[in-house]
């Protein structure tokens, strides 16, 4: 293996003597004493060991990547560092002293701050109130507003302290979280998947902010599964797989492919794209405008698009820009003007979900538990949820449970859903398996048009690959697919054409092949009015 010198696989790493010699990137004048040292941290939950004797060090001023698939134990590990979860065994030291935060207050007092992936924000409250809630001894609200303005300007993250958080975009909300951390002058900043809500341009600005912080001596623990990001930002990477530390590496000198193999444990074949010839227009949306049903949602504004049979149209965009509303408008949960949505020429805008399913327009929402599936119901009952009509699972209103169970079995078999059987409750399945079930349920109903939102969100790599392959196969068999996703790599991998949602509007739609990252970013709304850090 070529990069072996930079990339070592081991199980108990931090105890090794020679460890620190390879640590600091060359030519730096940084201190090499560890700021935070983790040794043998273990945390088990019923049925799963989230962290198994994880050890590593974080040095002052270092950007340290924590890399791993969904479910590898990254979140549990940082929750232990932030005092939200207590380890079963193992120890941490901060500045050389034992560090056992009983709760996040203690962590913050010790100089540890965290930006959450699913923000810890309060939508109905103002920016200043949100910031105050994340501080130990906040100044008076008026003084705090001044401080917020100062810090936000210093770091190029403009923010109005008086605005209500619910009205902010995802990128702005992240700024609230970051500024809340920065106001406490942390020594260690934990960032959990921060770029999943940003456009490529915004990511670049965030990185500049983080580099500036790192230059000031703040250590950053950066959690991600996006390899290219880590290669461009991080000094050091620790890789977790199934709760274990499976190696460390210098990201700048390791290829993305090697890191991916360490992360996943094996390599996956990229999905195969069978050549396909787009047919007639299956789904046509013209001038679709609907208000959002939720208080802080995004209204759809004048959407125009068409998807041909045998084609995958990918729609990107940062979370909260109308994705949920678009899915609801297409599934039939959110009625619109009749003419706004046409399915093979039939105006279906006023039709409910059942009527649309009858015509072959199927959908798979983002939220698996509670939207696509009922958590406490069995897989049989969940198969009936959308399959009742197209699979003939009822007779004069009465449910044919035998047929429903057979349908559930078929989904389980065809899509390799790992479960004891169709009588298991949906919530007992892992994210990946449930997602395979949800997608499989729609695919097996032979849709003419399938709309999916975030089909591989929070799913392990193997399941994600299987789901993408299923979508490609479905398109090859002549179905039209509208794939809404926040994962740009995924969209580039499977879609024929690409468009982006931005504040409820749809960008121009272009062939996916000849797009570069810069162009995609601009379609997604560019930097959303952010400025570059004043370094």
């Amino acid at each position, binding site marked *: 293996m070529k990069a072996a010198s930079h990339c070592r696989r081991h199980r108990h790493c931090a105890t090794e003597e020679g460890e620190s010699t390879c640590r600091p990137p060359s030519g730096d004048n940084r201190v090499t004493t560890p700021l935070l040292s983790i040794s043998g941290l273990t945390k088990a939950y019923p049925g799963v060991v989230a962290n198994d004797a994880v050890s590593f060090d974080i040095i002052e001023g270092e950007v340290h990547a924590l890399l791993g698939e969904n479910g590898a134990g990254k979140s549990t590990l940082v929750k232990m560092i932030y005092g939200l979860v207590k380890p079963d065994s193992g120890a941490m030291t901060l500045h050389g002293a034992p560090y056992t935060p009983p709760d996040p207050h203690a962590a913050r007092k010790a100089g540890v701050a965290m930006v959450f992936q699913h923000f810890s924000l309060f939508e109905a409250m103002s920016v200043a109130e949100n910031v105050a809630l994340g501080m130990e001894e906040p100044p008076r609200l008026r003084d705090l507003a001044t401080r917020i303005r100062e810090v936000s300007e210093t770091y190029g993250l403009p923010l109005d302290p008086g605005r209500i958080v619910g009205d902010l975009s995802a990128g702005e909300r992240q700024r609230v979280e970051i500024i809340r951390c920065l106001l406490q002058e942390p020594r260690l900043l934990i960032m959990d998947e921060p770029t999943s809500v940003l456009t490529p341009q915004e990511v670049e600005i965030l990185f500049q902010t983080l580099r500036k912080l790192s230059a000031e001596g703040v250590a950053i623990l950066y959690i991600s599964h996006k390899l290219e990001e880590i290669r461009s930002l991080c000094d050091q990477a620790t890789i977790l797989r199934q709760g274990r530390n499976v190696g460390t590496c210098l990201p700048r000198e390791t290829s993305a492919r090697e890191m991916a193999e360490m992360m996943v444990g094996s390599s996956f074949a990229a999905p195969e794209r069978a050549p396909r010839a787009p047919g007639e227009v299956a789904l046509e949306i013209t001038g679709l405008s609907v208000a959002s049903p939720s208080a802080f949602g995004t209204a759809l504004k004048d959407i125009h698009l068409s998807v041909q049979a045998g084609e995958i149209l990918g729609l990107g965009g940062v979370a909260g820009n109308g994705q949920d509303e678009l899915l609801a408008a297409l599934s039939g949960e959110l009625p619109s003007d009749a003419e706004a949505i046409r399915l093979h020429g039939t105006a279906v805008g006023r039709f*409910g979900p059942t009527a649309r*399913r009858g015509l072959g327009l199927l959908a798979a929402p983002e939220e698996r538990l509670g*939207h696509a599936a*009922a958590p406490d119901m069995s897989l049989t009952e969940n198969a009936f949820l959308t399959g*009742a009509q197209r699979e003939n699972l009822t007779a004069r209103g*009465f*449910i044919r449970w035998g047929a429903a169970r057979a349908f559930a079995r078929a989904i389980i078999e065809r899509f390799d859903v790992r479960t004891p059987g169709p009588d298991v409750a949906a919530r007992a399945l892992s994210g990946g398996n449930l997602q395979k079930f949800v997608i499989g349920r729609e695919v097996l109903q032979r849709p003419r048009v399938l709309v999916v939102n975030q089909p591989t969100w929070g799913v392990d790599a193997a399941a994600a690959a299987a789901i993408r392959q299923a979508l490609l196969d479905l398109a090859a068999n002549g179905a039209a697919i509208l794939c809404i996703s926040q994962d740009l790599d995924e969209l580039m991998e499977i879609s024929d054409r690409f468009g982006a949602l931005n504040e409820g509007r749809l960008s121009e739609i272009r062939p996916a092949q000849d797009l570069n990252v810069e162009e995609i970013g601009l379609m997604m709304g560019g930097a959303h009015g952010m400025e570059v850090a004043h370094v």
Partner: protein
Amino acid sequence: MLKLEKRPQPSRLWTWVTPLLAVVITMLAGGALFAALGKDPVEAIATIFWQPLFGEFAFYYRPQLLIKGAPLILIAIGLSLGFRAGIWNIGAEGQYIVGALTGAGVGLAFYPTESVLIFPLMVLAGALGGWGWAMIPAVLKLRFGTNEILVSLMLVYVAEQLLAAMALGPMKNPEGMGFPGSRNLRQYESAHNAELITGTGMHWGVVAAFIAVIFAYVLLTRHSLGYHIRLTGQAPRAARFAGVRPARLVLVCLGTAGALAGLAGMFEVSGPAGQVSIDFNVGYGFTAIIVAFLGRLHPLGILLAGLLMALTYIGGEIAQSNMGLPAAAIQLFQGMLLFFLLAVDVLTNYRIRLARREVA
């Protein structure tokens, strides 16, 4: 330290064990309560649970079980559909009263004509009365988004006043020598909900209750409407995704509950109670809430829970006359039952674990 740990799926065993456990705990706590009141706890519990079934006068009390149980079961079946769908009709007491008023009203209007058509008409009127009263919170919820809990409950107080107004006004017995209350329907053959088989307590209300149980069972386990009711309660968003129209469900659930409560009221006023009087209602509409939960919102469970609750009513009365146990103690006893049920319910969805000493 004890810790709760969510089960991967609800435990089937505990689903059925918890109600029994709750009954046992309630007996223990009730015993303690009775002891605190200076009564022999063992004797009190035995009086409540044993005497009505196997005591000396069981021949008299056993029919009472059906008479008291039927309205409870009838109302609880209706409520359970709504509770399953997350539609909280807690105004069954009001619907019960109004059903009794409309049912009795039709009967009294025909007095003294005798016809076999009168009783069926009264049944229809009772169901319609309860249905109409329940439609008020339903329509207000759909039209304006008001909270059905508060509206249906407010309507109980309105119905109680209406009952008083009727008993003292339009429905007052003209030959009643000034006493409040209507004519006695038991003395009006065409309107009398008589005992069908002598000595069993079986009347048309009991028949209706059994039919309701069977109907609800089939609905919930076999029919797609029942599935939609369950789905809406467990995952409202998934229900909309599946194509359920929430408005229709609100109308169906509140309407059914209202109609069944109205029926219960009608059968009661034309049978066991006999007349419209100021204190005609005895809280069946509220006790039925306990019955519905104790029966796990399951039709068969409700059947058993309704009979059990009827037992506490009858046994409570015996304990009241034989041991001087206050009526309020029985009321409290029933309240405790729901309390303990909700408390032990946690075992269905969670496992209790002894947390290990935490090493940080």
